[in-house]
């Protein structure tokens, strides 16, 4: 179920404004890839183009291609809804559906596919999803309570459980720990390491320790100035990026002299 992502010369526009320019990158299956860079450099925007979530903003569009196992997401006739069912996403702020129970939150994506779930199957999937997100032991006694009642870290893991229950090929994470305390952050990072056995994971983070801890490869994005497009500066093994980057900009950023 894990798949390779190939991006070829991708430009992202908001109406006429070029936000991200000329990104070419290949992300291997069963790896964790971290996107780092200063605020406004377009890394989140680029991440969203990998499951076409950028399209929820009116006027946003791309030029170029994104291939997942050779299939271009932007071919005409590709339904963004189908793309998103294969490329899951976890957001910066935990966003469980507040009126749904924990159980219904986990199953929310499956119900979209109009699958009729027997209660037994549902229970099984809920347990599988919550175990996959390392949340099962904490919530197994209160599955029918609203997801909004959990702590921030638990909520974020619930969102991860929700995302992986639909069994996507790729999991995108947009600063998943930025709103969490260090202990919750650690729990998520452990989870990411486990999840990479099954999924291709791409994570945007501002936290460079986090990037070095969890990722196999790291992509550094930068922006030349206000109004200029963001660009992919350097992409390599995480150890290389943080140890001996080939670009001066990258070195400045990872060593804290910039941004």
């Amino acid at each position: 179920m894990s798949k390779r992502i190939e991006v070829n010369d991708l430009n992202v526009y908001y109406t006429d404004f070029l936000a991200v320019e000329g990104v070419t990158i290949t992300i291997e299956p069963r790896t964790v890839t971290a996107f780092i860079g200063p605020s406004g450099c377009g890394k989140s925007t680029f991440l969203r183009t990998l499951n076409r979530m950028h399209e929820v903003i009116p006027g946003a569009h791309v030029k170029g291609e994104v291939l997942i196992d050779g299939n271009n997401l932007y071919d005409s006739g590709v339904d963004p809804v189908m793309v998103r069912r294969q490329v899951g996403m976890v957001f910066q702020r935990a966003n469980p559906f507040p009126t749904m129970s924990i159980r219904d939150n986990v199953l929310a994506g499956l119900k979209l596919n109009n699958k009729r779930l027997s209660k037994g199957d549902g229970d099984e999937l809920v347990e599988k999803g919550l175990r996959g997100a390392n949340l099962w032991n904490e919530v197994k006694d209160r599955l029918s309570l609203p997801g909004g009642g959990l702590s921030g870290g638990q909520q974020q893991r619930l969102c991860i459980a929700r995302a992986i229950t639909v069994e996507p090929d790729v999991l995108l994470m947009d600063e998943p720990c930025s709103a969490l305390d260090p202990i919750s952050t650690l729990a998520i990072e452990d989870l990411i390491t486990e999840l990479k056995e099954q999924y291709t994971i791409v994570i945007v983070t501002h936290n460079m320790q986090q990037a070095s801890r969890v990722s196999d490869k790291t992509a550094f994005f930068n922006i030349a100035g206000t109004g200029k497009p963001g660009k992919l500066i350097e992409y390599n093994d995480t150890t290389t990026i943080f140890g001996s980057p080939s670009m001066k900009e990258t070195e400045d950023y990872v060593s804290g002299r910039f941004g």
Partner: protein
Amino acid sequence: MLIMIILAGVALFLIISAIPAITADWSTESQLNTGPTAGFPNFWAYVGPLIWGTLWSAAIALLFGAPIGIGIALFISHYAPRRLASILGYLVDLLAAVPSIVFGLWGIIVIRPFLLPLSDWLAANLGWIPLFGGPVSTTGSTILAGALVLAVMILPIITSISREIFLQTPRLHEEAALALGATRWEMIRMAVFPYAKSGIVSATLLGLGRALGETMAIALIISPAILVSVNLITEGKNSQTIAANIALNFPIATTLQRDALIGTGLMLFVISLAVNSIARVIVGGRKGKRTKSKVSPKSPGPLSRVPAGDFASATALDVVSGRSSAGIADDEGPTPEEDIEGARY
């Protein structure tokens, strides 16, 4: 406080004025057994059918008006392109500015003749259902015509309130649904409706309040009778509403008949107060619930609200994420309650 005094004053006025008619013996009192109040043994026999007619016409109006109003609101908030949405929103608001007498005349001249073929068809094919029982109206002044015009009249209030609520749906919830592979409609069912449920209910109740009190359009369009009936397309079995009955009979009423009409007004006052209180309780409950639920505080608003085409929006996502992460980074175990209070209210 002033409002309370005024409200209490109105209630007191209604009660004091109505008492003579409520306590009178309608069969022997010479002022009450003639004219508009003739044929009723007491006040309650008179006001009962009127209460029914008031609720019945409002219910039919809601049946048509609420789904259409909510549908328009949804179209404006989540489907229409920005330009069309703002034009539509403006038009709906404009609808609220049309005087009810104009709606009444529109009902007489346009809607009544327009509905005649429909009522003929309903009577011919579905006449066995009591709702469509005959004899079918030949002039078109049916409760169906009146309620349809009423439905149009309550559209603005339902649409504008639900539209506001829909637009407030936290963007995070909408994105959560979309990222799971929801279609736009599935996203609305998953994220917008649960969030807006109580708002929709209170919008509908406010529309109901408007429908209950509507006078002139009903008085002009419907051929009324003071009886309890569910017939929709007859000439002589359209249950009269309290407000229209007062408007029609007040000018010729004698002193005691006026008291009787004021008594029916008291009943309308009670009903309207009840409807508004229920709406208020629901809105109140909604606030309480929202405070408890951990809604993300910094949601930038609904998708359609994000301005397109300028630089700010181009980097909106990154900028917003950067700012909020900075703001929240140091408060461990965020307390959503506080966040919500701060951000939303």
